[in-house]
């Protein structure tokens, strides 16, 4: 007799099991599964449903009064946001090409020119675009990592997550190189750590045991990677809107 696992019974409870009729029939005849199902039912009955305090019809106006003086500046439309990573990619490529040709960053024996904030407006704009693109990339990476670490089961197929992560590896490498060349050690360090993790996931087994998943989670926790990614995301978005600061040179 084929028994149903807890996951099937939870979906069944919430009316989302695909084979509802078969489970109905099975529960009627299998004491073991019926007991497991009753445990789920009684647990969720104990949890109950939270009673929400009522808000009257004036509530919307109250909320408006509280926020009306704090409305932020609206961000540009979606199509501009879509263009931004493409533009940033072009900027990164241009920086890379300039680096290779030796025109942008001088050789070791040539003294570096002194830069003054505000002297190079196109440089500031380029840096902001790059910060925005790195911020977007970090957000995507955080979502992908969360998606990965939140999978569970006895034997989990993570091939979908691996495809997403593999897409992020190349972009990450591009941004890490740009950060290294610009001497931004903080950004380069987080991107380096992130890249190792992304590679580890992308090249790992497509089916993982709970122990293997737990090992990846433990490594992520130990490196506080998700937290660092989150902090850097915020910093990138702040750089995107803040006035340009003079860069430390290394």
């Amino acid at each position, binding site marked *: 007799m084929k028994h149903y696992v*807890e*996951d099937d019974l*939870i*979906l069944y409870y*919430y009316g*989302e099991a695909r084979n509802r009729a078969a489970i109905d029939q099975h529960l009627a005849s299998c004491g073991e599964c019926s007991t497991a199902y009753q*445990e*789920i039912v*009684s*647990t*969720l*009955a*104990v*949890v*109950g*449903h*939270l009673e*929400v*305090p009522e*808000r009257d019809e004036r*509530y*919307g*106006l*109250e*909320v*408006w009064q*509280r*926020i*009306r003086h*704090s*409305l*932020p*500046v*609206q*961000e*540009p*439309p*979606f199509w501009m*946001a879509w263009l931004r990573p493409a533009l940033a990619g072009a900027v990164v490529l241009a920086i890379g090409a300039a680096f290779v040709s030796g025109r942008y960053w001088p050789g070791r024996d040539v003294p570096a020119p002194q830069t003054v904030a505000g002297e190079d407006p196109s440089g500031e704009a380029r840096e902001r675009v790059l910060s925005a693109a790195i911020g977007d990339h970090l957000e995507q990476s955080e*979502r992908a990592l*969360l*998606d990965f670490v*939140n*999978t*569970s*089961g006895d034997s989990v197929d993570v091939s*979908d*997550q691996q495809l997403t992560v593999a897409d992020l590896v190349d972009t990450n490498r591009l941004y890490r190189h740009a950060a290294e060349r610009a001497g931004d050690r903080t950004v380069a360090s987080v991107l380096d750590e992130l890249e190792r993790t992304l590679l580890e996931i992308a090249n790992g087994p497509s089916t993982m045991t709970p122990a293997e998943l737990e090992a990846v989670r433990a490594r992520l926790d130990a490196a506080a990677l998700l937290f660092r990614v989150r902090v850097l995301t915020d910093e990138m978005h702040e750089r995107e809107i803040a006035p340009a600061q003079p860069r430390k040179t290394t």
Partner: protein
Amino acid sequence: MTVSDVPATVLARARKGDSEAFRELVEQHSRSAFRLAYRMTRNEQDAEDVVQESFLRAYRHLGRFEARSHFGTWLYRIVANCAIEHIRTRLARQNRAPMEPIEKITMPTSESPGPDRLAESSGVRQRVDAALEGLSPLERAAFTLRHDEGRTIDEIGHALGLRRSAAKHAVFRAVKKLRVELRSLRAEG
């Protein structure tokens, strides 16, 4: 959100930065936003904070809102994610203090209490709250959307920006953890 959506003209004006038009959106959607925020945070003040933050965030990103979507659905997603962040911040502030042990409590045995009566008991409620606090913010959000909001797994994935499998497993993990944490209540009940 179940509120019928506002006219496209109001949305178009709000997207151009017309604050009066945005006021209409706030007035129309605040109550449903509060309901979701309260269910997720289980705290009135936190829910108020989430509602305000969500509308400010919505206003900032209104330019990216796709006009063919429903504003209510879009806002729902913002509120859900805002609530998760709020819970994360609250947990970080509490410095991840160990969860209070869920002690056995005495339940009446002379008659079998129904689910409503169980839920009304403040002792039970405290223990349920403690068990829910033990879930990760994502598990808690997914569970709330499934259990209290009656959202399907697909809708939960959409709201939280997760793949279907991740949304499903977040709900599974939540129920399993609650089953373990609330075992003593079940035994007595």
